[in-house]
């Protein structure tokens, strides 16, 4: 019997994996991918709660989260490209100065 609890546990595990990725990886692209994992874990929670409450709101908020994720990916990747042009590196520790 698959219930709300199962989905919440799965979503929690996925969110923790995303957090671990953000903190442990030293590659800007992988960090952005980890943020996508976290956003998807939250989406799963929204849909599961929406299903449990019998409401459409969960699915609509997922729609907005996806829009924000698309905007975040576009701007984030543009920043990554600009940084890579200046430093020839994707390691966040090489971007220690505010100005180049």
């Amino acid at each position: 019997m698959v219930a709300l609890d199962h989905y919440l546990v799965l979503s929690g595990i996925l969110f923790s994996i995303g957090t671990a990725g953000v903190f442990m990886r030293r590659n800007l692209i992988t960090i952005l991918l980890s943020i996508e994992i976290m956003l998807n874990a939250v989406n799963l929670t929204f849909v599961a709660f929406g299903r449990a409450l019998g409401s459409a709101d969960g699915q609509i908020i997922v729609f907005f989260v996806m829009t924000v994720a698309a905007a975040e990916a576009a701007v984030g990747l543009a920043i990554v490209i600009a940084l890579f042009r200046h430093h020839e590196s994707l390691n966040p520790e090489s971007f220690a100065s505010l100005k180049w």
Partner: protein
Amino acid sequence: MTETAFYLFGAIAIGASLLVIAQRNPVYSVLLLIASFGALSGLYVLLDAPFVAVIQIIVYAGAIMVLFLFVVMLLNAPQEDTEHDVRMHPFRGPGPMRFGAVLALGLAAELGWALTRTPGDSAAFGGTPVSSVSAIGRVLFTEYAFAFEVTSILILVAMVGAVLLARREEPR
């Protein structure tokens, strides 16, 4: 049947996400994340949300991940530095990495604790699911109309910002 599908998709999602974190080649990471999104889309189908499942595939796997893949291949970036080898045990890594591993484990423990403290809802889903696109659209364009319009401005801003940031500076 539903149970088997849930555990199958859940295992794929968790396994693929873990491998995304463990890969050193970003191209593999992106492709594994697409697999994870496919599994999540299956879970949305199990949750009677076919609209979300379809936009998960079209928008996430089809558009956002392809954008990532384009950038990874465009940059042709070197792999991660060997002194930060992720294959070593996370608790024996350098300071920030150890801190991150502890923090992630703490978050997982905290989420687990919170879930055991709540009364829990282990009954099967009741009620009628809202799965038709027309029902979702009706709510989206009435109750959430303002948020929907703001979204269009957000996308416009993101588009202009991305073009401006990634533009090559012309030589003076």
